[in-house]
């Protein structure tokens, strides 16, 4: 038995080197190792040929395998060299796939682990959290390492017909949704919203509680918002509604872009050069604690046109937040990266461009999300105090002109638009930092 135990140990170690299995819990790895069989190959020995029955997948312990896809499969890289830690032969995991998609040959003396696919899938299905995570990782591994645009690993139990591209993407989404639906989350969310809206409706319109009865009621607001001929002049059908939205959004865009264009470089310099920081940071920190809205009268004095004053105020808030967070981001970069770059012969400006900027980018984007929130905050306040048009102006004048339902419409619109801009910033960040998205995805499984 000692020999088998040692083999299982080597198998476990090899599994842990392989991307889809790497982070699985100990118990699961040991059971997979137990069902694995060690296969030794001489150079030029064939592992399998395309079309053969796909009953097991392989993990390479040592050596090298040449893996050539059938042309029909449409893989971007038809031929692949697979070394230690690589996983191949996963066709059996795909729904409706019974035959091998490629031919695999050993080019050097190689040791492989052969894992029967049926048993593996049964084992993974037995653990809904980790098993599903492993299947997701297979899917991603297949996409990235094998550059196959269409095929994804599937969990058995969906339809048995062979897959087309749309079907596979759809069925994976359906699977994800079905898992989410089974969890209590969506129902709790519905309960939460129902409670909130329900209590609003009850307290204002039905029970007419003391302070609440003066507030605009839920039905009044909804009716007003969706009415083609609103009593107070603002609904989704009126062009003024969209004008106000556009004005606010345009102001925020100008302020935010300007603040980013000035704030990010300033923050980068503050974080990167101690000398620059010694000179500039004290003045920066002196101005920062002054609440943005305390600048309102001064801004009106400085910029005679209220439009510029409003944008200036939003800009200021956003600028401080962006610069500060960028600086903190640069300071948070691990020393080792800079040192490594120095060792590798990078000059100072190269370190800045290749290490500091990409390294600070995640922190910069977190800062930008905060910054756009702050930008909206200041814009609304500034609009409420001065200026014409814009959602803040709408809220203020609706109050003054006793058009209470419109206040709520303004607030809700603000919430929606604010959320949308914040999501845009986040998406921009995800797009620029592909590496981080992938890293996070793999670690969460």
């Amino acid at each position, binding site marked *: 038995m000692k020999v088998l135990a040692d083999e299982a*140990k*080597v198998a*476990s*170690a090899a599994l*842990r*080197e*392989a*991307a889809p299995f*790497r982070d699985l819990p100990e118990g699961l790895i040991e059971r997979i190792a137990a069902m694995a069989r060690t296969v030794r190959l001489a150079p030029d020995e064939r592992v399998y040929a395309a079309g053969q029955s796909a009953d097991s997948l392989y993990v390479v312990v040592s050596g*090298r395998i040449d893996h050539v896809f059938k042309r029909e499969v449409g893989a971007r890289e038809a031929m*692949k*060299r*697979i*070394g*230690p*830690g*690589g996983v191949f032969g996963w066709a059996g995991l795909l729904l409706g796939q019974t035959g091998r998609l490629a031919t695999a040959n050993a080019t050097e003396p190689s040791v492989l682990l052969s894992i029967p696919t049926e048993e593996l899938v049964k084992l993974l299905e037995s653990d809904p959290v980790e098993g599903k995570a492993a299947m997701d990782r297979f899917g991603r591994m297949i996409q*990235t*390492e094998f550059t196959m645009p269409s095929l994804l690993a599937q969990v058995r139990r969906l339809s048995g017909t062979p897959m087309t591209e749309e079907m596979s993407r759809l069925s994976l989404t359906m699977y994800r949704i079905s898992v989410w639906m089974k969890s209590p989350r969506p129902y709790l969310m519905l309960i939460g919203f129902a409670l909130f809206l329900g209590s609003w409706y009850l307290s204002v319109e039905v029970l007419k509680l003391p302070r609440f009865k003066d507030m605009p009621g839920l039905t009044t607001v909804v009716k007003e918002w969706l009415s083609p001929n609103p009593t107070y002049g603002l609904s989704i059908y009126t062009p003024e509604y969209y004008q106000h939205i556009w004005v606010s959004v345009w102001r925020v865009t100008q302020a935010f872009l300007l603040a980013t264009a000035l704030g990010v470089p300033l923050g980068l310099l503050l974080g990167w050069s101690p000398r620059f920081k010694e000179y500039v940071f004290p003045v920066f920190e002196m101005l920062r604690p002054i609440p943005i809205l305390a600048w309102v009268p001064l801004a009106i004095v400085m910029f005679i046109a209220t439009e510029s004053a409003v944008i200036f105020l939003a800009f200021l808030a956003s600028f401080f937040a962006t610069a500060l967070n960028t600086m903190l981001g640069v300071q948070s970069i*691990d020393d*080792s*990266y800079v*040192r*490594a*770059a*120095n*060792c*590798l*012969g*990078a*000059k100072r400006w*190269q370190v800045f461009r*290749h*290490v500091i900027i*990409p*390294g600070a*980018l995640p922190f910069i984007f977190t800062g930008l999300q905060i910054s756009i929130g702050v930008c909206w905050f200041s814009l609304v306040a500034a609009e409420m105090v001065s200026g014409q048009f814009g959602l803040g102006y709408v809220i203020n004048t609706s109050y003054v002109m006793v058009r209470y339902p419109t206040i709520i419409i303004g607030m809700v619109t603000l919430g929606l638009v604010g959320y949308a801009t914040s999501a845009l910033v986040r998406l921009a960040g995800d797009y620029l*930092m*592909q*590496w*981080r998205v*992938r*890293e996070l995805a*793999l*670690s969460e499984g």
Partner: protein
Amino acid sequence: MTKSSGAEVKTRGHILIDDVVKVYDPEGAAVMAVDHCSLEIEAGEICMIVGPSGCGKTTLLNAIAGFHEITSGRILLDGEVLCSAQKPKAEPGPDRIVVFQNGALFPWKTNLENVVFGPVMQGRMTKAEALDRGRAMMADAGLAGVEHNYPGEVSSGMRRRVEIVRALMNDPAVLLLDEPYRALDSLTKSVMHEALLEIYYKNKVTIFFITHDLEEAIFLGHRVAIMTTRPCKPKKLLTVDIPHPRDYSVLTSKRFRELMQETSEAVHEEARKAFQAGEKEG
């Protein structure tokens, strides 16, 4: 420029650490980290530095690499002064490349982009040449297939190997390894050791390797320097006369056991001292 293995004599990478002293002055209390340490490392030698945590061995490595200053003494590389009392901090450079404890592959570059970083930054090769060489070296190290992955997508063992390839692309005289396998489990470690030796046999750089693992030290090294606890100073030098090339069967050989016996008492003594002194990780 992959060197053919075996018979070639290495002429670069001779390190002379000459009576080096490093005194820190945190909060006014002078703390001596390195105490008149002298050590000579031959070109092409694998020199293992063993000592308890916090004893100052990383300070030595950092001094050679150019990250920290020394207070007095000198360090020479191939006869040229890296740092001395007059010039306390060496310039970091591609002749002495560090492989870091927790890895310092740039997470925002793919593995291949990481590997070609050095030559591209220095302008020693065109981008195309660098990419070709990078792919070849990665394939040599068993890393073919992960060129276009990001470091975050591959296992930590693979990341270490990519980092070593990144260093070797610059044809360094010395590789400075600061407990690179500390965070790996022992099974992965033994695979990594063989991988490192394989790489060494092809490239014959001088390796300055810090570890607290005596087994690792004797398995890999030509010589093992056992350091005292802080302040750091070579306490015992051991020449490992097991011939290269070595594989894991060495671990159970009689000579290996004998060497372990000779040295483990010295190491254990220093470890106990460090424990009593309550050393924190440096």
